[in-house]
């Protein structure tokens, strides 16, 4: 369970002709057994925020501290597409991201593969799996390094509705079991309501416009009245915030 502390974060992209602000002075804190969704329209800097947290990109200004107790936190990343190495078998893809080797590491990888019900595919190449299965391997890979914090970038947006729904259920179970901190980026408000304990809303131009707790008991059935009401309430709130203005 990691703590994220983001203070006055700003990110600009400088091209030859103009400067585009992707994130504007965003501050928030996340800690403990939280599942935080970052929601917003496309182009609001959600993915950029995750890239900065994971170190793929650097910020223009501001600080990011990700800690676990008094040490640095370990991060696991799930991408929009699975991003598996197509030339390595499924189990080798998990082993590729491990910082240590050995039989117990291998056993751990196999355990997480089993958790996403893909133990039988360990020796296959990613190209032989369906899109949903590949994404499950991606999730297993992120969990297999036993991270303190999981960063997820719209992991279900490329999947069909039925596969996405079953994967959401699987992810929720794994989160409950492993008690990780999760930062989950999505443009889908229903998904956010179904999974998260807290929702952070970004508007165009990377402004943070809302930070709300979601106080509904788990398990949340997406078809239930309570979830539908919460979703409707949230959408109404967001509409009043004029998210598309820059």
């Amino acid at each position, binding site marked *: 369970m990691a703590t994220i502390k983001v203070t006055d974060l700003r990110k600009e992209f400088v091209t030859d002709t103009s400067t585009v602000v992707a994130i504007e002075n965003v501050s928030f804190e996340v800690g403990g057994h939280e599942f935080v969704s970052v929601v917003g329209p496309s182009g609001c800097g959600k993915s950029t925020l995750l890239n900065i947290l994971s170190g793929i990109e650097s910020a223009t200004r501001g600080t990011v501290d990700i800690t676990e107790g008094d040490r640095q936190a370990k991060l696991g990343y799930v991408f929009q597409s699975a991003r598996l190495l197509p*030339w390595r078998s499924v189990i080798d893809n998990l082993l590729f991201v491990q910082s240590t080797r050995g039989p117990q590491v291998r056993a751990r990888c196999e355990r997480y593969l089993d958790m996403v019900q893909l133990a039988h595919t360990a020796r296959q190449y990613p190209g032989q799996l369906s899109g949903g299965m590949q994404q499950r391997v991606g999730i297993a890979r992120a969990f297999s390094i036993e991270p303190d914090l999981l960063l997820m970038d719209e992991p279900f947006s490329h999947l069909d509705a039925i596969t996405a729904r079953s994967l959401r259920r699987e992810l929720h179970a794994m989160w409950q079991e492993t008690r990780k901190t999760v930062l989950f980026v999505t443009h889908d408000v229903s998904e956010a309501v179904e999974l998260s304990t807290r929702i952070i809303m970004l508007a165009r131009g990377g402004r943070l416009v809302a930070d709300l707790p979601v106080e509904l008991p788990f398990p949340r059935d997406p078809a239930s009245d309570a979830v539908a009401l919460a979703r409707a309430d949230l959408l109404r709130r967001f509409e009043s915030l004029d998210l598309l203005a820059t």
Partner: protein
Amino acid sequence: MQTNLRPRRPAAPPSPGGDERAARRRAERRARWLWRIAGYVFFVGLWQFTSSFLVADFIVPPPAVILTEMWDIIASGQVWVHFGATLRTIAIGFAIAFVLGSATGLLMGRSRWWEAFLSDWVMATLTTPGLIFALVTAMIFGLGPTGPIVAVVVTSFSYVTVNVVEGVKAVPRDLTDMARSFGRGPAQILRHVYLPFLAPYFFTATRYGFSIAWKIATLAEVIVGTAGIGFMMRQQFQQFSMRGFLAWVLLFFAFALFLERVVLQRRMRHVLRWRPEVAR
């Protein structure tokens, strides 16, 4: 209440349809082979007809004469001497070109500066006719095997480079980002992301470079060789022996085809076995 989701009509029993399709496929395969054989028969017949009725034997020798000539070349052991000489030239030259070209390609693909520094020269060697390199190396190194080897290095080098540059530029950014966000170092990224991704490009480079190497090696041998396929072609050309010339060309073809189709492609299938279309 009944749902409308069950299939309206029962699925047709699979066997007759499958049989029909298989039969059609068989018929098509038979037709293909018939036409193919007809093609060979037609061309060999045309050849035979031309040499027996239209022109003199020494201009278009009949197929049977070429076949006996080929057999004589093989039986006398000449074929091994000269193919060996040419193969040695190609192997040495191409090995050097491959190492140099891969290194240059990696450098050019990774750095814009080096790309700008080198690309004009790579393009220049690519567009210069092979004859020029054959002649210049012939002049500098004179008779013997060195000139052809250098000519092979210079010409196939740029083919390797161009393909490797293309590959390095196409390395998927999302995979390298993934590897970095999981904390993998440069050596691991090179070994597990770059090299496997580049493998097909290396193969294309090898195939193109190799076919270029064959051509330039024989060309250089025609000019300064003391042995080799090109040397034999020149001898036959100077004696106006169409018979010997065609026999050597056909042997050359058989050998080049064998190396490319069988040896190289088998290697490629092994390295690219992770691809779904190869695994099938």
